[in-house]
């Protein structure tokens, strides 16, 4: 019996979501006296990178190099992960709640009749047969404890919820043949639009977000500059995306993306309940707003009451000096 972790690279490289899921899965495995395995369905990942998963607790990585896994077809992935789970007799399957993870989890759950928890934020609490795990509900306005009673359990881990722990070790990489083929894939990819060079919002550690207080799309240059010095992703409130000042995928909140970065900087956003719902899992929140009564200040750790058009450029300048090592604190 084992824990199987589905590791998903981005552009052929394993990144934080994969390391988080792996280290989560191996800690779970250790607590239950099981082995932790990984499965990778991307032929472009070099064997040496997969071996590194050993540092996050993987004993062995099953690598299916079939070309049928590109482009992503959730049904094909679900059947392959199921084959891997059966091969290692997995009792728990862990994956990261990435865009693809969102599609994979429920299919796998239906194929295997295995209970799924979407967006787990913690390690499970286990006691004999009882298996309970916490997840955000109501867009982060509450936390639910979910009990999974099926023999096999699937955990889709919320990105940034549990920090990866890197140790020593090299995983064995084994070629795995799930039996899935090109002819199983029912979709055809006809185009990809990627905004290159930008930090992906869903798993960014720092996010700079702005709202209607910016007055118009022409003023976003200062937001992007602030994001750039911090190595942050950019986000926005819903009305800003609705009027196309910013692209839809930047919209965060109860009806947009839910995120939990280490640092969320909100500029010219009032802090409506629907906005807070998607961001209040952030570890630290900074609010910049000219209205001292803006509700966002109640949900913030740090705040500046002031005009964004002055505060943001000044903050960017200060951060540049800090990054250049020109600031010392005692």
């Amino acid at each position, binding site marked *: 019996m084992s824990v199987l972790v589905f590791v998903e690279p*981005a552009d052929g490289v394993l990144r934080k979501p994969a390391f988080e899921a792996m280290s989560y899965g191996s800690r779970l495995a250790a607590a239950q006296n099981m082995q932790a395995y990984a499965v990778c369905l991307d032929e472009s990942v070099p064997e040496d990178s997969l071996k590194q998963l050993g540092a996050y607790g993987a004993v062995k990585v099953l690598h299916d190099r079939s070309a049928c896994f590109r*482009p*992503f077809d*959730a*049904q094909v992935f679900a059947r392959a992960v199921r084959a891997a789970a059966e091969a290692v007799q997995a009792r728990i399957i862990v994956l990261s709640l990435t*865009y*693809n993870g969102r*599609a994979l*989890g*429920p*299919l*796998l*759950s*239906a194929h295997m009749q295995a*209970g*799924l*928890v*979407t967006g787990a934020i913690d390690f499970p609490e286990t006691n004999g047969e009882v298996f*309970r795990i916490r*997840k*955000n*509900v*109501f*867009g982060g*306005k*509450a936390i*639910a404890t*979910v009990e*999974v009673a099926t023999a096999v359990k699937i955990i889709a881990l919320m990105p940034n919820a549990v920090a990866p722990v890197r140790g020593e070790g090299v995983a064995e990489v084994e070629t795995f043949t799930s039996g899935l083929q090109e002819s199983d894939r*029912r*979709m*055809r*990819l*006809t*185009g*990809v*639009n*990627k905004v290159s060079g930008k930090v992906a919002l869903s798993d960014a550690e*720092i996010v700079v977000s702005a709202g209607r207080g910016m007055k118009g799309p022409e003023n976003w240059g200062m937001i992007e500059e602030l994001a750039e010095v*911090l190595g942050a992703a950019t986000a926005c409130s819903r009305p800003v995306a609705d009027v196309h000042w910013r692209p*839809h*995928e930047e919209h965060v909140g*109860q009806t*947009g993306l*839910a995120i939990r970065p280490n*640092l969320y900087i909100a500029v010219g956003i009032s802090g409506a309940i*629907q906005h807070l*719902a998607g961001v209040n899992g952030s*570890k630290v*929140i*900074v609010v910049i707003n000219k209205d001292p009564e803006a509700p966002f200040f*109640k949900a*913030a750790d*740090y*705040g*500046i009451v002031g005009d964004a058009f002055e505060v943001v450029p*000044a*903050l960017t*300048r*200060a951060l540049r000096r800090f990054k250049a090592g020109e600031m010392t604190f005692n």
Partner: protein
Amino acid sequence: MKILVCISKTPDTTSRIAFTDNNSRFDTDKVQFIINPYDEWYALVRAVELKEATGAEVTLIHVGPADGDAILRKALAIGGDRAVRVDADPADAYFVASQIAAFVRSDPHDLILTGKETIDYNGSQVGGMLAGLLDYPFVSLASRLDVAGNLVTLERDISGGKEILEVPLPVVVSCAKGMAEQRIPNMRGIMAARTKPLTVMTAHPADPLTRMVAFELPQTKQGVKLISPDQPEELVRLLHVEAKVI
């Protein structure tokens, strides 16, 4: 073409979030229920647009007790042709998906649309499970959807961008922002909805796989620390030394 739109009932986004029965159940006292925004704004409106453009037939399905009828009538007013309610407690996503799968087996539909997730339990599960149970292809987080003959063209969100895909019918699609714009039902729609068929069906036997056993509210913030607008260095210092996030 027959389109099925899965409709879920969620508390209004401004609802007070509280729990009863020793924090084991959501407190629905004074709570207004709405159609889950993703189901309404994107899945349903796109289905109605396709109906207007191609003459497709739009069926709505909801799994839940009788108080869901009001939600279905509103969805009919927006433009659904007929509605089906499976009269059962929606115990978990797998149970709900099993009911919808049973319906589709008895009354096949070509295009099945769900919202990307419900805004209450944030499961993002029903669409994928349904595709799994029916063995239909599944495209999640679609922000654009067009149908030409038997072929569906979709744009879906991926990390750092979008992907454009072609998939033959039948297919299950979970709908996200960008696919359509919210529509407010007009008087004619509301009047017409009163006489559109709403069928109540009994549940198909299925066992839930999970159960929500307890709820809690997140810890509240300690209180905001205000920094003067002419001292951005102080904010940098606090973020570095105190919060340790930069």
